[in-house]
C-alpha cells in the first residue's frame, strides 16, 4: 500500500465511523513550500471530498509545520463545541512504518491537552473569511471589553502579568499605563518584524489568525486611547502581509474598525508597513525611525517610546503575539500561554503553545516534540542573541518565561558548536547597523577573534563586556551571549591561549 492509499483508506475508514464534514487543506507558506497543490492533485482530494459530501476548506498551516504538506479531516458536529477536535492527521511525507506513530500523536498540538481556546485555537481552521473567524469567537472578547471603562481594562492587563512576547518580557499592563497617562496623540506600533533566525511564530499568527491580532489592536487602542496604529511586518513574510491586509479590509468593510462596532467616540486607523530586512529592524526604536522615514538605526533611551515615540508622541510598541494574547485574558481557560518555534533535530518542528508561566524540564519538552534525546548534544535558545543549553542541563526545570522570543533550535550529533557560534557571530556582524562603535567594531573583532586557531578567550570576554555595556541597542548588547555560553558549555571546543 502506498502512503497515498494509506491516507485515503484512513479517511474512508474514519468516515464510515464518523461523518466527515470538512477537509482542511493546509495551504499556508508551509504547505506551499512543500508542494501541497500537487499532493492534492495526486490524491484526488476534490473527488474524495465530493464522494464524502465534505466541504473543502483551504486554510493556513496549523502550527504543525512538520506535517506539511497535509490535509486534516474533521468530523461533523464539532463546530458548536468549545473546541474542535481532530481525529486524523497523517504526514504524507513519512515512511509507512512511521505512520502508526504519527497517527498516535495526531492530536498533540501543544504541550497541554488541545489548548483549544488559546492562541492557536483557530490555526488551520479558517478559510480566510471574516465569518469563519467570527464563528470561532473572533471579536467576541473585544465586544465584551468595550463595555468596560479603560481603567479597568488596564488593571486587568496588569493583573494578568502579561509580558512582552518579543523576548524582552516588559510588563504589558505597565507599558500601556505609561503611554495612557501622557498627553496624546498616542500611537500603537505592532512589531511584526520577527527577524530573528529560529523564530517563526508571529508569521504563523499573521497567516493563520490575523483577526486575533486586529482584535488585540482594537483593545489596546481603546484602553490606551490610540487613534493611529502601524503594523510593521517583515518584508519577507509575503503570505503574512497578504493575509493581514485581507483581514484588515474585511474588518473595515464590515464596520469592525468603525463606529458600528467601536465604543462611542473611538476612532482608529490601522496602517500596514512592510519592512525591508535587517535583524536590527526588530528593535523597537529602529522601527520608529523606519516608520518616520529616517535611517533604520536605534535611538538613545531614555526617552522611552511610551513618553516620546513616533514623532515625539507617546507610543506603545507591542509584539504580534503580545497583542494576540490580550484576547485570551478574559477567559477562564487556558492560563496565559505563549508560542515557541521549534526547529532542528526533532521529528516535529513547528509552532507550539505552552503555558506562559509554567515550568518544564527540557527532557520532557523535547520528548513531547519528538526528539531522540540521546542524539541531542545541546539546544540553542534564541538565535543570534541566544544561549546554548548543554544536555547535562536537560534535567533542570526551565521557566517558560525565560526563553526569550521562544526560538528553540535542537542540535544534532554532527552539529559543530564552533561552526554554529561562528555563523551567529558572522550574522551579528553583517546585521550590525553601524550606528555605534561598540557594536560595529565589536561584532567584527569578535568574528575575527573566534576564527583564530587559538582563541584568546580573555580578550573575547573583555570585548563582549564592552559590547554589553556600551552598545546603543540590544543587537550589540547581546551579540556576545551565544559566544559566551558556547565557551562556558563546551570549553573543549576552543583551544584557548592566555595572554
Amino acid at each position, binding site marked *: 500500500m502506498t502512503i497515498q492509499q494509506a491516507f485515503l483508506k484512513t479517511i474512508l475508514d474514519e468516515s464510515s465511523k464518523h461523518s466527515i464534514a470538512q477537509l482542511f487543506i493546509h495551504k499556508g507558506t*508551509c504547505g506551499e*513550500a*512543500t508542494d501541497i497543490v500537487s499532493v492534492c492533485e495526486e490524491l484526488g482530494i476534490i473527488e474524495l471530498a465530493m464522494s464524502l459530501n465534505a466541504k473543502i476548506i483551504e486554510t493556513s498551516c496549523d502550527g504543525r509545520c512538520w506535517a*506539511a504538506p497535509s490535509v486534516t479531516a474533521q468530523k461533523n458536529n464539532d463546530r458548536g463545541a468549545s473546541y474542535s477536535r481532530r481525529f486524523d492527521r497523517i504526514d504524507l511525507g513519512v515512511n509507512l512504518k512511521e505512520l502508526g506513530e504519527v497517527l498516535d500523536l495526531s492530536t498533540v498540538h501543544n504541550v497541554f491537552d488541545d489548548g483549544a481556546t488559546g492562541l492557536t485555537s483557530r490555526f488551520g481552521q479558517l478559510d480566510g473569511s471574516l465569518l469563519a473567524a467570527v464563528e470561532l469567537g473572533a471579536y467576541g472578547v473585544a465586544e465584551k471589553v468595550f463595555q468596560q471603562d479603560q481603567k479597568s481594562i488596564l488593571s486587568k492587563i496588569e493583573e494578568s502579568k502579561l509580558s512582552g512576547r518579543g523576548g524582552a518580557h516588559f510588563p504589558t499592563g505597565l507599558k500601556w499605563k505609561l503611554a495612557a497617562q501622557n498627553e496624546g496623540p498616542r500611537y500603537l506600533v505592532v512589531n511584526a518584524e520577527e527577524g530573528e*533566525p529560529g523564530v517563526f511564530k508571529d508569521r504563523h499568527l499573521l497567516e493563520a489568525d490575523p483577526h486575533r491580532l486586529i482584535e488585540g489592536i482594537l483593545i489596546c487602542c481603546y484602553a490606551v486611547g490610540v487613534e493611529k496604529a502601524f503594523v510593521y511586518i517583515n518584508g519577507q513574510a509575503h503570505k503574512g502581509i497578504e493575509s493581514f491586509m485581507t483581514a484588515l479590509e474585511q474588518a473595515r468593510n464590515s464596520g469592525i474598525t468603525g463606529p458600528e462596532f467601536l465604543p462611542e467616540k473611538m476612532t482608529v486607523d490601522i496602517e500596514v508597513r*512592510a*519592512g525591508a530586512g535587517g535583524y536590527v529592524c526588530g528593535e523597537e526604536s529602529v522601527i520608529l525611525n523606519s516608520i518616520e522615514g529616517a535611517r533604520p538605526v536605534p535611538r538613545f533611551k531614555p526617552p522611552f517610546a511610551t513618553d516620546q515615540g513616533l514623532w515625539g508622541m507617546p507610543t506603545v510598541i507591542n509584539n504580534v503575539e503580545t497583542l494576540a494574547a490580550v484576547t485570551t485574558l478574559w477567559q477562564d481557560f487556558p492560563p496565559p500561554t505563549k508560542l515557541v518555534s521549534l526547529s532542528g533535530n526533532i521529528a516535529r518542528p513547528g509552532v507550539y503553545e505552552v503555558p506562559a508561566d509554567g515550568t518544564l524540564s527540557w527532557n520532557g519538552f523535547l520528548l513531547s516534540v519528538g526528539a531522540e534525546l540521546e542524539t541531542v548534544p545541546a539546544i540553542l535558545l534564541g*538565535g543570534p542573541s541566544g544561549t546554548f543549553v548543554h544536555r547535562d542541563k536537560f534535567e533542570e526545570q526551565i521557566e517558560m518565561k525565560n526563553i526569550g522570543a521562544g526560538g528553540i533550535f535542537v542540535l544534532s550529533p554532527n552539529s559543530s558548536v564552533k561552526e554554529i557560534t561562528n555563523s551567529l557571530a558572522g550574522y551579528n556582524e553583517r546585521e550590525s547597523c553601524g550606528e555605534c562603535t561598540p557594536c560595529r567594531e565589536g561584532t567584527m573583532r569578535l568574528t575575527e577573534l573566534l576564527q583564530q586557531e587559538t582563541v584568546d578567550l580573555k580578550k573575547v570576554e573583555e570585548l563582549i563586556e564592552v559590547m554589553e555595556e556600551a552598545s546603543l541597542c540590544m543587537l550589540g548588547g547581546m551579540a556576545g551571549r551565544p559566544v559566551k555560553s558556547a565557551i562556558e558549555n563546551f570549553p573543549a571546543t576552543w583551544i584557548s591561549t592566555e595572554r
Partner: protein
Amino acid sequence: MIPFDATADDAGDRLANFEKQLLTLPSRKSYLLPAFHMAQQYLDWLPRESILVIASHLRIPLSEVYATATAYSELRLEKPEYGAWYMCTGVACEAAGAQRIIAAIETVPGKFGRTDCQFLCSLAPICTDHRGRILGRLTENRVRAIFLEDRGD
C-alpha cells in the same frame, strides 16, 4: 520580474508607470520605505532614476534617500540577476544540509546566490527558486527534478 534596464526600449514606460503610482503616496517623509517597496515592485530594484523621483516627490534630500536605502538589506541598489536561485544559509538550513543542496544546484546551469536566514526554520533546508517559489524541505533530487522539468524532460 525582469529587472529595470535604463538602456532597454521599455525603460521610459516602466519609469513613467512607477512615477504615476508614486504620486498616489502622500508627499511626506514617512512614506519613504513604502516608496522604495513600490519602486522594487515596478522595477525590481532601485535604479538611480527611481531614487531621484522618490527624493523629489517626498521632498527629502537625494543623499538622505540614498543613505536610507543602503541601510535595508532587502533593497537592491544594483541590478539583480534575473531568475537566480537563492539558498538560505541560516543555522537551521545549514544543519539540515544546505551545503549539500548548494553543491547540487551548482551542478546544474543557472544563476545562484545565498541568503541569510529566511525565517522558515521548521521547513529547513529552504530555497527560493528562479520563479520566486519557496521550496521547503528541499532535497538534491527535487532540485534536479525542477531543472529537468524546466528543460521539458
